[in-house]
């Protein structure tokens, strides 16, 4: 741990961020560093495992693997932090259960002993947005703002597991109409526009995407139609799986539902730290906004150029 930083976290990457949307990883690392927060690696961390999938197959496996992941952060002595709602759901729910049920903790530790690990507890798993909003606070973020984008209309997508189950989340039980992400977004001078069913699920979670892509895409279709209705320029979110579903999902929606959506969708999907970084005046290269190689068949599937164009005008 370095003395130069005010905050220290163990960066739990999960699967989708490092392996499908590495631009999110890049932007979180750079923005947190910029804000005075150290992101330490959690060597050997695995899949969280995903709450709607592996938990739905076998709860004990889910719990034990999650405990192993948290125990890696414990070894370093920092709070695990994740940029993914799914990982957040797993780490936090597992942590919550283990904190509250002594017997369960004992049992889990019997398994972990087999690989020479223990789960001690007490270290609260956090979300990147939670760190920004609760640990650092809006006032801290405000000090870093260099550019504002008053013409930008943003559709904020929260996703589910960042606020629910609310009894295991840090938002004082608020889940129906949370505002924290909008407040962060509004620091950039952009307008967070209200749209119908703003808090609705993107459709990917709970193993639905793996089960039947068309069903997941139909959730996404509904969201996208509502977002287009209010004329949002971009979508801001805080979860790589929602990100994937809203990005790659647009391609799928355009394909599956061509007959009912009218114009195909192409709304840029941007992760919250990417937007913040731009407002902080950081190098877009550090924020995963500029690809340095030409690659095909990789993310982002929907071009973010319109976004880059808007902010270019503002930055000048």
């Amino acid at each position, binding site marked *: 741990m370095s003395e130069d930083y005010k905050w220290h976290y163990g960066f739990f990457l999960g699967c989708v961020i490092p392996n499908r949307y590495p631009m999110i990883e890049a932007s979180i690392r750079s923005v947190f560093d910029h804000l005075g927060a150290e992101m330490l690696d959690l060597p050997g961390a695995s899949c969280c495992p995903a709450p709607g999938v*592996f938990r739905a*197959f076998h709860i004990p*496996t889910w719990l034990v693997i999650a405990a192993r992941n948290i125990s890696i952060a414990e070894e370093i002595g920092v709070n695990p932090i994740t940029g993914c709602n799914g990982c957040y759901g797993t780490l936090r729910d597992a942590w919550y259960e283990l904190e509250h049920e002594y017997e369960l903790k004992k049992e889990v530790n019997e398994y972990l002993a087999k690989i020479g690990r223990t789960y001690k507890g007490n270290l609260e798993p956090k979300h990147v947005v939670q760190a920004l909003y609760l640990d650092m606070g809006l006032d801290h973020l405000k000090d870093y703002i260099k550019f504002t984008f008053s013409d930008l209309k943003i559709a904020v997508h929260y996703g589910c597991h960042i606020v629910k189950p609310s009894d295991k989340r840090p938002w004082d039980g608020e889940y129906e109409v949370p505002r924290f992400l909008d407040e962060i977004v509004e620091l950039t001078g952009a307008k967070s526009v209200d749209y119908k069913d703003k808090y609705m699920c993107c459709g990917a*979670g709970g193993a639905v995407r793996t089960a039947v892509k068309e069903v997941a895409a139909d959730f996404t279709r509904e969201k996208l139609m509502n977002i287009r209705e209010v004329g949002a320029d971009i979508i801001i979110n805080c979860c790589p799986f929602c990100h994937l579903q809203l990005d790659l999902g647009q391609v799928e929606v355009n394909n599956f539902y061509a007959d009912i959506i009218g114009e195909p969708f192409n709304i840029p999907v941007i992760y919250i730290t990417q937007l913040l970084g731009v407002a902080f005046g950081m190098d877009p290269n550090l924020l995963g906004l500029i690809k340095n190689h030409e690659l095909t068949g*990789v993310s982002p599937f929907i071009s973010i150029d319109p976004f880059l164009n808007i902010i270019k005008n503002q930055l000048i």
Partner: protein
Amino acid sequence: MSENVNKYIKRKVYKKTSSRIAQKFVDAGLQEIRACINCGTCTGSCPSGRRTAYRTRSAIRRALTGDESVLKDIDIWLCSTCYYCYERCPRNIPVTDMIIKLRNIAVEEGYILDSHFVLANNIFYATGHGVPATGENNKKWRDLRESYGLPPLPPTVHSYPEAVKECQELMKAVGFKKLMDNAAKLKEERAKAEKKDKEE
């Protein structure tokens, strides 16, 4: 038999209830399920039910009354775990947790989709990641990482082979491997029986 007999005569009478599945919930400490008053808040909240045949309340009711066909239903895999039902149930029933438990029971009895099985067994168990970046197919993702100035493989299980072993050992100990093998076996048996049925 006249065509109309097949068409109109159903002779389906709701005969008996069984508490086998309900008991599994109780054993798992989820006895709240029995306090359901069938108010429909869960179904009304459900973004999945608005577009599929999945009905949250009915799934719970079927489980409670012993309609075991609920386990075979693909519908229970269409819940996106958005937790709206969990948050709003007036009887404090952790509905989403119930659905997850219901899926656990289904898997135990061999009802798991092929895509889920592959994800669990061939990907997660093998690599420690649900969405991996290793393997020939995934080279483009490693390249993508590099294009943003990141190392081709993240500092996760991907960079630590012994960590993959750790995870596998845990999964064996806790019974995941056995569960999957059993599910595979049951699936196969069922497929065979079905095929035989069709042939006859």
